[in-house]
Structures are given as structure tokens and as C-alpha cells.
């Protein structure tokens, strides 16, 4: 299994410090900005929760406003199979963005495209819309996990979960779209010239075979369990000690008292983190 995981902390992360010192957030693990690389992004777009920014997990997220701003990963050996997961959130302004685009190595053919307007996700496979056409989401400002799975023999599925309980029926291509194309580049951000609005991006993980799966919401301390201590972690975050896991249990974009209630409900439902 080849795994490519892009934390917004990047490879050059300085050790995180609690308290008043800011955590260092970095996009250095992605392609450098340039004509063949990431476009329109600067280091300051990797923002820390300590500066008041929304994030899903850990301490950093990528915040992008406006069109044609994205990070890119060039895959050394283009892939015939591709599974990925990313977290996306819109802040409520703007009309929409193509938030993910996977192309061939030359960048001349888009294999997978994902567009998010704030109310719907739509998926394109080799330029054709995937059925069902749109996945409608309940909240324009919630966090959503987008999971994609593709093989160039033709199989494709897309699934959206988030907003504290939405789980869409996977959107699946209705026709086998076999192709000789492989995926050689992946772009995450406001990838199109018509993109409008501010978006947050988080926890991008792509693999050749096994699907990455989703992070465990409510697991505020990131230990893989839903426990009473997660409630305390959320309390402590509201008091200034930021959580290392996923404290935004209801996935509404902010860590608040309602997330404690969400954790309690999960504990009382005997919930476990999905494998």
C-alpha cells in the first residue's frame, strides 16, 4: 500500500507548544508554488487554531479565499488506482469552488473533479457528471469529509459525511468509464478560476489501495476512543488548551459547549471510533 498523507503541518513543522506560543503550520510538504506546482498560496494560508481559525483535527488548517488558489501534489509514479479522503468547510460566503481536482501527470486531462457550492457536492469523472448528480448537505458552514475511490478500470465511488451525522449514499458512476489515464497530480483548494468564497481544507490522505477512512469525530484527544475525558478536553479547549484530536464533535466549524453534549451522546450510545 502506498500512502500519501498531507497534514497541514508539513515536514518542516517545529514542535508544537501549548500555551501562548503559536503552533507552526506549514504547507511545505506540498509542491512549491510555481507554474507546475501549487498556485496562489502562501505560507500564511496554513493557519493555526490559536489564531482563531477553524480546523477539524490537530491545530492547523489551510484557509483559502478567492479563485485559483490551491496546493498540489505531484505523484512520482502516476496511479491507476486512487483512494482519498479530505475535509472541506466553507465559511458561508461565495458561490462555490472546485475543491479537488486529480489529473494525469501532464495536467491535460482531469480524471476526478469535486465541486462544492456550500449546499451541494458534485462529482465529475473524466469530464462527465457522476450520478447521483449532487449530494445536498444540511449546513453551509459545517465540516464535510469527502471520500473518493477510483480505478482506471472504471470503478468510482464518492461519499460525503459530516455536519455531525450526515452520511450520504455513496455517489457511484453509473457507467464503467475505463480509461488508460492515470492520476499524476492532485490539487486541493479553490482550484478553478471561477471559485468564490473562503474555504478551509484539512487532513488530506490519499492511497493506492486501502481507503483512508474518516477521522473519529468527538475523539478530542486523538486516542482512538470516545470517552468522558474527551468532554474534558473540549472544556479545556474553551479555556485555551487546544485539543490534539477532533474536538468539533458536531462538525459545525467551532469548538463549543455543544460539542461536549455531542460527546456525551456518543458515550451514552456506546459509540466507538470507526475502524
Amino acid at each position, binding site marked *: 500500500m502506498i500512502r500519501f498523507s498531507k497534514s497541514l503541518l508539513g515536514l518542516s513543522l517545529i514542535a508544537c507548544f501549548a500555551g501562548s506560543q503559536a503552533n507552526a503550520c506549514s504547507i511545505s510538504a506540498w509542491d512549491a508554488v510555481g507554474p507546475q506546482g501549487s498556485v496562489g498560496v502562501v505560507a500564511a494560508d496554513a493557519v493555526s487554531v490559536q489564531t482563531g481559525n477553524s480546523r477539524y483535527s490537530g491545530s492547523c488548517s489551510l484557509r483559502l479565499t478567492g479563485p485559483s488558489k490551491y496546493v498540489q501534489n505531484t505523484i512520482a509514479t502516476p496511479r491507476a488506482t486512487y483512494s482519498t479522503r479530505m475535509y472541506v468547510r466553507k465559511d458561508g460566503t461565495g458561490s462555490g469552488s472546485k475543491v479537488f481536482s486529480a489529473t494525469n501527470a501532464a495536467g491535460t486531462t482531469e480524471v476526478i473533479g469535486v465541486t462544492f457550492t456550500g449546499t451541494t457536492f458534485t462529482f465529475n469523472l473524466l469530464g462527465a457528471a457522476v450520478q447521483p448528480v449532487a449530494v445536498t448537505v444540511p449546513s453551509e458552514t459545517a465540516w464535510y469529509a469527502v471520500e473518493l475511490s477510483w480505478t482506471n478500470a472504471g470503478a468510482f465511488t464518492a461519499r460525503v459525511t459530516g455536519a455531525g451525522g450526515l452520511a450520504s449514499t455513496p455517489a457511484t458512476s453509473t457507467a464503467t468509464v475505463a480509461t488508460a489515464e492515470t492520476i499524476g497530480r492532485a490539487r486541493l483548494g479553490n482550484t478553478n478560476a471561477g471559485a468564490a468564497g473562503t474555504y478551509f481544507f484539512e487532513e488530506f490522505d490519499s492511497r493506492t489501495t486501502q481507503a483512508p477512512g474518516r477521522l473519529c469525530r468527538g475523539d478530542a484527544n486523538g486516542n482512538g476512543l470516545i*470517552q*468522558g475525558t474527551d*468532554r*474534558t478536553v473540549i*472544556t479545556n479547549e474553551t479555556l485555551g488548551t487546544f485539543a490534539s484530536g477532533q474536538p468539533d464533535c458536531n462538525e459545525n466549524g467551532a469548538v463549543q*459547549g455543544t460539542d461536549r453534549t455531542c460527546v456525551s451522546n456518543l*458515550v*451514552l450510545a*456506546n459509540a466507538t471510533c470507526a475502524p
Partner: protein
Amino acid sequence: MNKVICAGILALVAASANANNFVLTSGDGVQKGVGQNFALDFVSSGDGTTLVVKVAIPDSDKASVDLSGCGKGLPSGFTGQCAVAKGDLIMMVYNDQNKLLPKGQVSLGMFAVKYADGIARKLSISSTEVGSPDAVELDSSASQ
């Protein structure tokens, strides 16, 4: 009822040597119309702020559980919530100010389990969790 109280006190005295210890005490047999009565107590070391204890309910699909006594006796400022899910009775105790549970015996409340066939089952504590104000899980144990 006296037998229940005596058994409970003996268990608590024994458990005091093991701090942060949950004690499940069962009533004496099956009471008609009520089922089996159980009491949950906690022998606190004074360093915990949240508790989660799970009691396995055998044949839970055939049981009805009265949770009206959940949290009765908790110290002021603490909230107790109970639910039955996936074969367990789950009790959670917390407060949102990171206040510590007092040292010593803490009553977590009572519950009753009634089976359609009227036959008593043996319940047991299946997991325990005590969390500190730093959100660290502390050592905890169970006696029954």
C-alpha cells in the same frame, strides 16, 4: 433492603483500599413488579472530574431498565446521565468547570432491571473510566 445496605457498606469498606473504585451492589433477589435493584457507588480518590462506568446487561434485548435513579446522590454541581446501548448500561458523570469529585464514597445512583421471565441475572461492571481535569485517564477499578 437492610441486606442490600449491609452488603453495600462491606463492599465500599473493602474497596476503599482501591481508590477510584466503582462498586456495583445488587439487591436481594427479584422484587415483583420491579425486578432487580442495583446501586452504583464510587470510592473517589478526589482527583477525578469525569466518570464513565458500563454495566453489562445479559440478555439486554429481553430486559427493561429503570434509569430513574440515575445520578441520585451525586454531589452538587455534577451531572449524571444514563443510557442503555449495545448491551451495556452506561453511566456518565461530569461537570463543566473541571471540579473534582470529593474524596470518599460518592453515590452514583440506582437502577432496576426487569426481565420478562422474572429470572434474575448477574450483572457486572464491564468498563470504568475516571478522567482528571487535565483530561488524563486515571487508574480505576471495579468491585461487585
